[in-house]
Every structure is written in structure tokens, then in C-alpha cells.
């Protein structure tokens, strides 16, 4: 990020800031299990900017995908056609995810609590739900088997809740050494990227705390949109604004993807 210039203020949206901040967290030698939506945008943005060797794996079985457009689903033709190889779904989950070969897993969240437990299953009671969500998919084992987990979620009190209605993906449970007590040897969630800020688990308590705020964001805004009394790190930093290159590549990617999707097959 040495060549990061400062674009004019007001030239990017909060959502763009979120995707750019997520992309920056990826390293060139990461092997990334990519979910659809913001994670896919962030991973491909990273690949098209500072991390050209980033390995993208989609749970449909494609390894080393280099899509030119963002896929609508995790099994779009583009993913297989641009992949180094495509394996079966059982092999993907056994040898590649469970085998511990993925350095970063991306998760989205309908609800997330202060210990980074995630719900994508159901709002309300499981047996008589208010809202039935799609469910876990790959997430429960992405959360336990990837070396670390990044979460991308828009910051709202509906999402940042004191207690999730259902633990779809285990973060730090009730905090501290809960992961270890369950026998989980992976790091777990190490970064939550929102449209307002970055949060990371406290080294000991594992409670999420704000470690960086995006440009123009006030503390109060974060506090108001978080369903628990959120903590701020002592060395709170400010996220650098998106560079012109980052914004240009991201917008180009989204534009290309939109055009492709609207068209007939």
C-alpha cells in the first residue's frame, strides 16, 4: 500500500470503502475461500491490484479461479473456465478446506455478536422462525478450518446484536479460550470489515473492538449502529481512503459484472 494516493473526498461510497478495506487485508500468497457478493468483489479487487498471485478457491470446487467478471453464484461458468483445476465438492471440503490448506475464509453475516459468532440460519426461533435465512452452507467449517476468517458485513444494529439467534458459524463463543476448549486450533475470525470501520478481536478477551475507522466516520455513528457497548482500541487508526487505482479497478469490475449479468446467457 506504499503507492496509495489520496483521492478527492466524497468520491467513494461507504460500500466501496468496505470492499477496498477488505481487499487490502489479503496478501499475495494467501489462499482464499471466496463467498459470493462483497467477499468475491474484495478478493478479485485484491487479485487485480496488489495481490496478483492470490489463489481464489470457490466451494463449488474451482481452484485458482481468475474471473474477469464477478460471478453471480459460486458455480458460474467463469469460475471453472478460468481455474487451474476443478475438483469434486467432497474433495473440496475434505482435502482443501478440512485439510487446512485455506489461509483466509470470508464470511458474510445476517447477525454477528461481540465474540464474532455469526448467524445466517434463522431470525427468531428455529422451529417457528420470523425469517428463514439460507443457512450455513460452507460457513460452519470455513469458520473452524480456515487459518483465519474475515467477515464483511454492513454496520447496522440489526446485524450487530448482543446475542445471535442461532450460532451458524462459531467465532469465539463466550470469548477468551473458548475455541481452544472446543479443540479448534485455527485462529478464527481476525478481522471484521464494515462500511464504517475495522474491528478485531481483543488478544485476550476476544471481544471485537474497533481498531480503525474509515475516513469521515464518527465514533458515535459506530456506537449507535452496534447492538452492544462496543469498545475502541487504544491505538485507533484511520483507514486510508481508496486510491484512484483501487476505485478504478473496483468500479470497472462491478460495471463489467453488471453488464454480463443483465445480458442473456
Amino acid at each position, binding site marked *: 500500500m506504499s503507492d496509495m494516493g489520496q483521492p478527492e473526498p466524497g468520491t467513494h461510497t461507504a460500500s466501496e470503502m468496505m470492499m477496498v478495506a477488505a481487499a487490502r487485508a489479503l496478501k499475495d500468497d494467501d489462499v482464499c475461500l471466496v463467498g*459470493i457478493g462483497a467477499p468475491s468483489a474484495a478478493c478479485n479487487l485484491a487479485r487485480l491490484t496488489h495481490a496478483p498471485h492470490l489463489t481464489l478457491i470457490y466451494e463449488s470446487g474451482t481452484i485458482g479461479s481468475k474471473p474477469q467478471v464477478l460471478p*453471480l453464484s459460486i458455480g458460474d461458468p467463469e469460475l471453472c473456465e478460468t481455474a487451474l483445476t476443478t475438483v469434486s*465438492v467432497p474433495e473440496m471440503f475434505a482435502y482443501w478446506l478440512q485439510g487446512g490448506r485455506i489461509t483466509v475464509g470470508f464470511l458474510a453475516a445476517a447477525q454477528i455478536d461481540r465474540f464474532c459468532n455469526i448467524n445466517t440460519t434463522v431470525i427468531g426461533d*428455529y422451529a417457528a422462525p420470523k425469517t*428463514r435465512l*439460507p443457512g450455513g452452507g460452507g460457513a460452519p*467449517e470455513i469458520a*473452524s*478450518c480456515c487459518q483465519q476468517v474475515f467477515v464483511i458485513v454492513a454496520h447496522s444494529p440489526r446485524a450487530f446484536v448482543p446475542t445471535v439467534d442461532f450460532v451458524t458459524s462459531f467465532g469465539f463463543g463466550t470469548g477468551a479460550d473458548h475455541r481452544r476448549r472446543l*479443540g479448534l486450533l485455527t485462529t478464527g475470525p481476525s478481522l471484521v470489515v464494515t462500511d464504517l470501520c475495522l474491528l478485531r478481536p481483543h488478544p485476550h478477551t476476544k471481544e471485537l473492538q474497533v481498531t480503525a475507522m474509515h475516513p469521515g466516520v464518527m465514533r458515535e455513528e459506530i456506537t449507535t449502529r452496534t447492538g452492544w457497548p462496543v469498545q475502541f482500541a487504544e491505538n485507533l487508526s484511520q483507514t486510508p481512503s481508496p486510491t484512484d487505482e483501487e476505485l478504478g479497478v473496483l468500479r470497472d469490475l462491478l460495471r463489467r459484472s453488471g453488464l454480463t449479468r443483465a445480458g442473456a446467457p
Partner: protein
Amino acid sequence: MPRILSLQDAIADSVHDGDTVAMEGFTHLIPFAAGHEVIRQRRRDLTLIRMTPDLIYDQLIGMGCARKLVFSWGGNPGVGSLHRLRDAVEHGWPQPLELIEHSHAGMAHAYAAGAAGLPLAILRGYAGTDLPRVNPQIRFIDDPFSGERLAAIPPLRPDVTIIHAQRADRTGNVLLEGIIGVQKEAVLAAKRAIVTVEEIADDLRRPSPNSVVLPAWTVHAIVAAPGGARPSYAHGYYRRDNAFYTQWDAISRERETFLTWMRDNVLRIPSSPPPRARG
């Protein structure tokens, strides 16, 4: 050796009310044509198995074919909810739907255990999640070597598995290519298997000795159904109709628009040409 049948005959022969049915295809090669035929033949009380229920199961559920769903992710990928699935779970329309819910890793291991003839699948999974609380099939065992706690789930063993593939040869050997998902495991785990294909060819044209091929003797019926995966896709034949996946959100949101669409686009479409013509 499999029989080469019309779609109508294959479904009539192999799919019965009350059966446990798996239609697989991970985004790719989803057997839509076969699913529509199941709807037209008004099968009832099915236990449907599928990792990613997708639009075809939204349609089966909305048309009242299903009593139970075994799944791991029930959404319209990249678009949002499956509204018919939600309506069944949230409001019991057109009938209540029992859920047996897993993670993808769990389902994938359970299909593999079914294919391998094992009475259980073992995985590092479900740790700390609430899924074992709502799915009593998820248990835990202690590894005798390390003492570690591992998840144990029963295998998936469908009465019938239905998949779509690129090609079959005239003896009924089947080639799959691209995103191959869990189809091989789903076929090998099942009592009966129906495979719809883009074409039945003289030569299987497998590109590699290690291509994914199902020998004819693992399949019970082969059906020529060109375009049979649309709006999903067939690698090498046609692309995914992403626009339709997006449109489905509006079509399926309300019961009335859903029923109208199903009547006009599925029920009123002739089942298939007379038995012999297509095979």
C-alpha cells in the same frame, strides 16, 4: 445396463410418492427438466435431498411435492431468498416442510459415506455451532488415537438420485465435466439413478483417462434431454441464465405469480414426446 427412456417414463418408473429423492448439481448441471417432470407427474410426500436447494427445489416445494428437505444452503445464489421455501417453513404453505439441516461439509461427507458403503461419515465439523441442537443426526465421537472430538453423521442414501450430464454413449456410460459437484457420490449412494444428458452419442469423447465417468452399470435410466439444465448450465454446451435467476425473485415472491408462472411454463408444457421418439 441402463435403459434409454423418455423423461416421462424414467420419472414414472423410478420416482414414487414418499421416496427420498436427491437432485444434485452444484450450480452447474442442475436437472431442471427432470424436476419439472416430477412436478407434472404430481409426486407427493417426497423427502428432497440437495446441498443447495436452488430454484428447482423452490418450485417442487411450492407445488406441494415435498414433505421434508435435507439441505445445507437454501437460497437463490447471489440474489436472495428462495421465497417458496421460506413460505413453506415460515407459513406452512402449501404444506409444512420438515427441515434436516447440515453444513455443506456435512452433506458432502455424508454423500461420500453413502457412496463408500459406510454407516457413518466422520468430519471435523459443527464445532460450537447450533446445528447439532436442531439436527439430532449430528453426533460426536472421540477419536481413539488422539482423543479428539469429531462430528459423526449418518450417510445419505437416496432412493433415487437424478442428475444431468453432458453426454452418454449408446451403452449408457455417462460423462460429466466442469463443476462436477457431488453428482458421482449422489449416484453411487442411491438405490436408483436417472441421468438426463445433453446428448446420447456414439462416442463418449472423454478428454482424459481420468475424466469423470459413470459406468453404465451404475445408472438405471438415461434420458436425452438437451437443454435439460436450463436456467442452470452445461459446461461446453450453454451458459448459465443469470438473468432468469434474478427474475425468479419477483416471480416467486407471491403465491399467485408463482402459480401462474408454473402453470404457463411447466404444467402446460407437454411432458415429453412419446416414449420412443426421444430415446
